């Protein structure tokens, strides 16, 4: 009797399960690996408004494989090496990761025409995209995502200076390195923060903060990296006399207590804490609003790079580029593990059908962080429900995916900011406009390179960069004399400087 009951129960259970199993098979399901942003305070990505709407519209189920922010490179590299792949990567891959593993990805060139009419129309409108996305074997393996060109992103870290302090000390915004030096001395000795202590540390930076690298301070001498491009020539800057002059200037600042040398060692958190102490007069960053309380942030203004007093013929530069492509070229790539790439591509294409869908992916449901006017123009909204625990940045990443979304937002679709309703939203653009005349005239083209070439560059640059970073840091803290400079000049080729320069010259000349 017992056996019979058990058998019956088991049967009922089985019968009950069958429809579920059958249903699961009917719904096409794909796994997409994506980075979970640290500011996202929501539940899993599948619960976002746009993700749910996409499921209702396409009937395709997406299982989101969420990678913790900061671990994505390692984890994706491990997935690629082990062959245990998701169906697609969204906003995870870098150029190296794609190029080195092309065999693991599906060529989309032949699929786009039939399955992705929206994508095709976009790319035809901006043919530069076809060029940027085509790999050296002539195929397209990844599709671009993010904002095609966001004016806020034309510049990177911008140097800011506390105008209120300058006014208090009766000084003008410096325009040359000599004036900058005088300003910093005045700040060190003048106690502009008024706490009665000589705790001012005028110039602050942080090597562990992407917007505050020391190289930002090198712009006065005509470069913001270990290279510059002039008349189609790739020039290695660390051997130029002006490079030494730059190092000597900052060593002088460091030795007189005008530059915070802890910038070379401190963590990002320590850097933010230091900024909040209100002891510096100038630093590099995105906007002061993200580093200070509003009343202090308002004291800061953007500062065009100062002219090097010892090289009046050099035009100062700032890191950035006019009309820069700010999308992610390696945004969406389908792997060979995907059983039906055409279907997944159709799903991706459907997310690019109209501006409203794209904005929903970016910032969530309309009416929260954005709205559309009668002309189809999207406008950013600044809700007053923000708290310090749930800032607008939290809202952006909680409601939407911001720039790791499965769509490419074209320039005419980009949301606008109303300067009257939200004056703080246009502040960054104002800063960008202050420095944009100083963008370098020539930049590296965006083009894919073959696999052996990316490997060559990675190996050479790993050693070269480590050497240069530590040489610069050492010279700024301990100074540089003739002997040290001569050793540097004779050593640098041993670290692959010539090879690296030749690599980029060949790249510029279109040799690969």
């Amino acid at each position, binding site marked *: 009797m017992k056996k019979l009951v058990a058998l019956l129960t088991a049967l009922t259970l089985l019968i009950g399960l069958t429809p579920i199993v059958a249903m699961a098979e009917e719904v096409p399901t794909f796994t997409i690996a994506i980075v979970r942003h640290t500011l996202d305070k929501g539940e899993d990505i599948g619960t976002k408004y746009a993700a749910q709407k996409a499921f209702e519209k396409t009937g395709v189920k997406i299982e989101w494989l969420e990678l913790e922010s900061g671990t994505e490179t390692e984890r994706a590299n491990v997935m690629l090496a082990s*062959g245990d792949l998701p169906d697609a990567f969204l906003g995870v891959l870098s150029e190296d990761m794609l190029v080195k593993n*092309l065999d693991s990805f599906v060529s989309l060139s032949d699929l786009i025409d039939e399955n992705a009419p929206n994508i095709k129309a976009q790319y035809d409108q901006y043919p530069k995209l076809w060029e940027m996305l085509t790999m050296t074997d002539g195929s397209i393996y990844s599709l671009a995502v993010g904002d095609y060109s966001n004016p806020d992103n034309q510049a990177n870290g911008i140097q800011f200076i506390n105008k209120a302090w300058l006014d208090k000390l009766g000084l003008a915004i410096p325009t040359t390195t000599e004036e900058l030096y005088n300003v910093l001395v005045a700040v060190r000795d003048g106690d502009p923060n008024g706490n009665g202590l000589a705790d001012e540390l005028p110039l602050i930076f942080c090597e562990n903060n992407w917007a505050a690298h020391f190289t930002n301070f090198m712009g006065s001498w005509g470069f913001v990296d270990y290279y510059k491009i002039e008349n189609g020539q790739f020039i290695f800057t660390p051997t130029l006399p002006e490079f030494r002059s730059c190092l000597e200037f900052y060593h002088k600042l460091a030795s007189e207590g005008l530059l915070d040398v802890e910038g*070379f060692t401190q963590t990002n958190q320590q850097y933010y804490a230091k900024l909040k102490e209100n002891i510096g007069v100038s630093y590099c960053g995105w906007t002061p609003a993200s580093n200070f309380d509003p009343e202090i942030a308002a004291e800061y203004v953007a500062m065009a790079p100062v002219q090097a007093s010892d090289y009046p013929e050099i035009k100062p530069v700032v890191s950035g580029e006019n009309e820069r492509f700010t999308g992610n070229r390696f945004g969406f790539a389908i792997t060979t593990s995907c059983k039906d790439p055409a279907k997944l591509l159709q799903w991706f294409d459907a997310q690019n059908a109209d501006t409203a869908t794209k904005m929903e992916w970016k910032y969530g449901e309309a009416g929260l962080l954005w709205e559309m006017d009668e002309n189809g123009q999207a406008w950013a909204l600044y809700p007053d429900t923000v708290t310090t625990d749930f800032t607008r940045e939290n809202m952006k990443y909680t409601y939407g995916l911001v720039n790791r979304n499965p769509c490419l937002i074209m320039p005419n679709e980009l949301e606008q900011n109303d300067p009257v309703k939200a004056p703080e939203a246009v502040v960054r653009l104002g800063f960008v406009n202050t420095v944009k005349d100083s963008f370098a005239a020539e930049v590296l083209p965006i083009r894919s390179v073959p696999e052996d070439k990316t490997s060559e560059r990675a190996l050479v640059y790993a*050693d070269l960069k480590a050497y240069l970073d530590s040489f610069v840091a050492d010279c700024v803290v301990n100074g540089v004399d003739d002997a040290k400079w001569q050793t540097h000049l004779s050593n640098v080729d041993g670290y692959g400087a010539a090879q690296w320069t030749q690599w980029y010259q060949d790249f510029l000349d279109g040799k690969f």
Partner: protein
Amino acid sequence: MTSEAWQIQRKDQRARKRRLVLKQMKSNYFLYLFLLPAVVYLAIFAYAPMYGIQIAFKNFKPSKGITGSAWVGLKYFETFFNSPRFWTLLSNTLLISLYTLLAGFPMPIVLALMLNYIKSPKLKKFTQTVTYAPHFISLVVMVGMLNVFLSPRSGFVNTLITSLGGQSVFFMGSPDWFRHLYVWSGVWQSAGWGSIIYLAALSGVAPELHEAAIIDGANKFQRILSIDLPTIMPTMVILLIMNFGSVMNVGYEKVFLMQNNLNLTTSEVISTYTYKLGLQNAEYSYSTAIGLFNNVINFSLLLIVNRAARKLSGSSLW
């Protein structure tokens, strides 16, 4: 006896020996059962992955798999030996490890001997707890503490130095200070924990020996030299050999956390370099070659020290 008969006899002996071993194994099978998990663990996690070592000699492409990738021989080893940073990496690795060994090995022994002579049990317990405690601080927190305490502007160490009239020192940004900070913060963190095993060994010393020595008029130092040290000698030797086995495996996490552009000349070691190339730049073959080189040196060191220990003290790992 003819050589043939002699051979037959030897074969016979060997067979008998084998039978004996098997019989013993059978009767003690439960002991082998205890051993099984450890053997399985080692086989899966230590021996099976060695199959992958071959990618050091191949141009490994994940999509082609380990067997399908092209053979390049010693190419990656040559690249590493010719790298401008090879000697720096090697000497940094060796200096840091040997320094760690020299400073870190005797400390727990000294601490254990000291604790062993504390009369008041309360004081002994208290001291032990205080010295263990740092062991439980995570490395990230530990390095964060170093950064904060040693900051030239706000750290208490420099505040102390300047208040005594000295010059403030940029500890974390100095290549000369890096090794000392790394080693001594490690000693501070692990000496207490490491002393446990020696305390256990010391508790095995027969009290009669001490009593006899006291009657003979030996002082504490003489008792340590003639009673305590000989007793814990085997433990010391085994631990020393095991420490040597990991000489080249400088704990990469702590070095990596303490690294910055200013101290890179002394703080870049083989393991951090391998991590940067292998996981961050996805140069798997190259980093495997470097890792293999590292381990071959390690293994040779282990063999040498083991042999030396057997000759000198009579005890060794095998």
